[in-house]
């Protein structure tokens, strides 16, 4: 293979960067069109209540109000949701969490819309609140769903892993750790709140501009609740101001609401959530209680693990059935065991609702097991990093589900890198001997992780791309997978440019649009670079073949004899020809200069009923070390520095990959130290950034990060994935450092909860 031009080039820039640094990017909240109506939602103030009266007709008499809708305006009351169809576009019969939308008004102005909301007649009959996952399982607990999807009350879903029998191995193990860890909810806190703008079309259809992650799923959901065929709804994604897993279900709701109002009024309608609405109405990372039993030999070799996970998915399932499965198959961590059993239950409560959030269940699972591994190492008198190196997964090992790892396993190298860069051994020893009287105490901690690539057993994992040479010799690219800041548009561009041997500037990625891009499943699971990237690579290879046929014809040689010099094609005899010459010649030959390609992840199989199989085609790995200082008097913890190493295969877009790492670490730091989205009896305790603090520049330390480059043979140029897993190790590394600093183990987040340690 020729030397790569773009893959791994450290100078590559984000292809959307100029419009963003200049402020020219138009997010949905920056879009307005003539005649546009403003929509506002009436939201439930109660966590659980029966709706005893709902009449929007008084709103229609308010000057400026044009239309108002409820569940009655949608097919099947707007019932939607995947994989569990338990949610509504607007509340039906009951409200099940604070902030749930009940009715939406469209008006000429925001003030008129507010007045319209105030005029709506609504009455609630409060129901008993299910305020914790433990309470949800009480036989006498109030039922949150109208129909239990499992037939077992508030139980939403159950998942298991059955890999041999850990019982006997744990019973007589020389060292056993048995502990329960409590992980809180987390708010995505993307800086752009959810929003959608719908424009009715002359053919009876509707176009929706929405800041969603997965436009095709939005199209299908919206079309279904409107009673339109899928092609009756066109969804376009403008630039998105952050998502992190959080802009799917809640944006589908918003999109369907404005689409209905646009069809009813014949006018464009826009709805933007306020920050307080966003915090109340959007789904969260699931809270989880994780009970772990780990057993080891006296020499530190891990034997077996048992895990029981109780997950609070709130009022609606959203993506929790999938995220709780990911938590299940990662619950014992990235270690060798002889036997592992996991039992997971996700339950309905009235604590908001939970769904997809970067890490997707593994943030909670890895945090618990990494705190537990540290505790076990301490009991055995072992250095926690050496203990991990003794037990961590290496090539040829079997994972906790029994799947064999054959290639691309860089975990030990990640651990060694963070150990050496952080000066681990000296610092760990120094901080172990701090005098007891010192008020400001230091600690250093480590965590490592694995993270299954792509959707795995969650579903068919494919993506599709198209490329087309335009009349001006530029190339347009579409992908069904989208970019909400993570850099996939840049990755797709560089991959196409690499295969085609053209300047990146020649390629333009179209805005995601269900009318031009082909369906590719949801943009989730950090799968854009791997799955979407492979689709682009294959599509480019197809287009390249056509171009080479034309070039060979033009140069009077065979394809095999062609050589490239930059964009130019050179044959054995003739003068070089330009890319434009080749395009023109292809057209003269009547060749079609467009291509589409599809790629699907290699076959895997998970038996959900028996808890066995191969959950993922491959894994990514990583390790992080955090150094903290804790002020025992104030309880304030500062992270001094973080070292991070991650094995994501080949790195395609280095600056983007590092940006993902730094950003993921900041979110993990927030989860460990300050976030923790709390509910009291179903009432959210923070609806603004004053009370729900996310890390500022002064809260995040300098980060020294690297990518340990292995090669995944099925990935584009050997790449795996990284956007989610880079945050998985941060919170437990910080908590383990905190534990060393204060000389006591912690088993819950957030650490800076106002209590003194």
């Amino acid at each position, binding site marked *: 293979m020729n030397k790569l031009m773009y893959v791994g080039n450290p100078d590559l*820039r*984000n292809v*959307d*960067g*100029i*419009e*963003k*640094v*200049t*402020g*020219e*990017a*138009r*997010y949905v*909240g*920056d879009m307005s069109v003539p005649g546009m109506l403003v929509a506002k939602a009436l939201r439930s103030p109660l966590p659980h209540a029966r709706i005893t009266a709902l009449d929007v007709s008084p709103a229609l008499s308010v000057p400026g109000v044009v239309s108002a809708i409820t569940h009655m305006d949608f097919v099947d009351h707007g019932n939607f949701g995947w994989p569990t169809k338990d949610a509504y576009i607007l509340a039906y019969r009951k409200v099940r969490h604070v902030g749930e939308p009940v009715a939406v008004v469209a008006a000429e102005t925001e003030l008129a819309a507010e007045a319209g909301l105030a005029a709506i007649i609504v009455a609630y009959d409060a129901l008993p609140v299910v305020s914790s996952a433990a309470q949800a399982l009480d036989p006498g607990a109030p039922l949150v769903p109208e129909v239990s999807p499992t037939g077992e009350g508030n139980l939403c879903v159950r998942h298991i892993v059955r890999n041999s029998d850990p019982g006997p191995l744990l019973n007589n193990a020389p060292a056993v750790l048995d502990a329960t860890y409590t992980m809180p909810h987390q708010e*995505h*806190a*993307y*800086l*752009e*709140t959810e929003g959608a703008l719908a424009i009715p079309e002359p053919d009876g259809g509707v176009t929706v501009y929405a800041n969603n992650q997965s436009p095709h799923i939005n199209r299908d959901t919206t079309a279904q609740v409107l009673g339109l065929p899928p092609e009756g709804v066109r969804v376009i994604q403008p*630039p*998105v*101001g*952050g*998502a*992190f897993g959080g802009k799917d279900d809640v944006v589908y709701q918003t999109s369907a609401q404005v689409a209905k109002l646009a069809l009813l009024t014949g006018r464009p309608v826009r709805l933007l959530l*306020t*920050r*307080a609405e966003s915090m109340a109405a959007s789904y969260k990372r699931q809270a989880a209680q994780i009970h772990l039993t780990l057993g080891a030999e006296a020499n530190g070799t891990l034997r077996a693990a048992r895990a029981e996970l109780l997950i609070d998915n709130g009022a609606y399932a959203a993506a929790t059935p999938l995220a709780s499965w990911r938590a299940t198959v990662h619950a014992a961590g990235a270690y060798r065991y002889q036997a592992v059993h996991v039992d997971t239950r996700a339950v309905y409560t009235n604590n908001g609702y939970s769904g997809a959030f970067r890490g997707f269940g593994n943030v909670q699972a890895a945090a618990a097991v990494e705190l537990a591994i540290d505790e076990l190492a301490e009991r055995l008198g072992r250095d926690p990093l050496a203990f991990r190196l003794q037990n961590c997964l290496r090539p040829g090992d079997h994972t906790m589900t029994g799947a064999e790892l054959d290639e691309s396993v860089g975990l030990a190298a990640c651990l060694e890198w963070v150990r050496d860069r952080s000066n681990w051994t000296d610092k760990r020893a120094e901080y172990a001997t701090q005098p007891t009287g010192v008020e400001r105490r230091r600690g250093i901690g480590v965590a490592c992780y694995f993270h299954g690539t792509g959707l795995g057993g969650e579903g068919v994992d494919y993506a599709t791309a198209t490329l087309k040479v335009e009349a001006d010799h530029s190339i347009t690219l579409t992908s069904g997978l989208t970019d*909400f*800041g*993570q*850099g996939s548009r840049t990755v797709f561009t560089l991959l196409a440019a690499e295969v085609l041997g053209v300047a990146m500037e020649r390629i333009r990625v179209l805005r995601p649009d269900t009318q031009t891009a082909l369906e590719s499943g949801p943009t989730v699971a950090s799968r854009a670079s791997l799955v979407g990237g492979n689709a682009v690579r294959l599509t480019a290879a197809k287009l390249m073949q056509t171009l080479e046929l034309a070039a060979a014809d033009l140069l009077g040689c065979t394809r095999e004899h062609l050589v490239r010099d930059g964009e130019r094609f050179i044959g054995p005899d003739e003068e070089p020809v330009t890319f434009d010459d080749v395009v023109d010649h292809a057209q003269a030959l009547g060749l079609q200069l467009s291509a589409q390609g599809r790629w699907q992840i290699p076959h895997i199989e998970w038996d959900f009923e028996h808890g066995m199989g191969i959950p993922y085609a491959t894994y990514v790995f990583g390790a992080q070390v955090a150094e903290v200082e804790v002020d025992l008097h104030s309880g304030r913890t500062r992270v001094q520095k973080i070292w991070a190493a991650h094995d994501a295969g080949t790195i395609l877009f280095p*600056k*983007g990959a*590092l*940006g993902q*790492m*730094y*950003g*993921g*670490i*900041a*979110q993990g730091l927030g989860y460990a130290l300050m976030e923790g989205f709390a509910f009291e009896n179903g009432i959210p305790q923070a609806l*603004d*950034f*004053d009370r729900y603090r*996310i890390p*500022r*520049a*002064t809260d*995040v330390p*300098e*980060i020294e990060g690297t990518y340990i480059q292995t090669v995944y043979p099925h990935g584009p140029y050997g790449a795996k994935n990284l956007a989610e897993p880079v945050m998985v190790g941060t919170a437990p590394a910080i908590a383990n450092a905190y534990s060393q600093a204060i000389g006591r183990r912690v088993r819950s987040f957030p650490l800076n909860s106002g209590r003194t340690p």
Partner: protein
Amino acid sequence: MRLTFTLNGEDIAVDDVSEDMLLIDLLREKLGLMGTKRGCESGTCGVCSVLVDDRLTRACRTPAAKVMGRTVTTIEGLRGPDGTLSDLQASFLARGAVQCGYCTPAMVIAAEALLRRTPRPTRAQIRAGISSVLCRCTGYQQIVDAIELVAEQRAANREGLR
């Protein structure tokens, strides 16, 4: 009221500005400058930050009337007359400091305010200087890198002029 002030280097007059109009509404709704974003209603996130007489100012907390006779700079005002990027804009792009882009205009503005006040900041001072603007994507590191680089460039340019 009729409001006169300097916006991005141009003296302008805006009629029918009500007493309670906020600067963010003046910029976005009346003047169509969409680079200044909305992120919260509590003045906490900072993505609406602009410069008022070189001072970093939250447009969502500032009555429009307050800028009478003063100089306001938004992200739209940082580009050169020929459309070239400012040194900070170019540096953000080159250092990978841009992800979703929603906080980026305010971050660039905060950096500009910082460097006008503190031409050679330490990395800790850079962090303090941009701490009023939240970013959920980048973990701030490449933003700090980008600002540090421009501080060095500007210092070198000043040396060169001497």
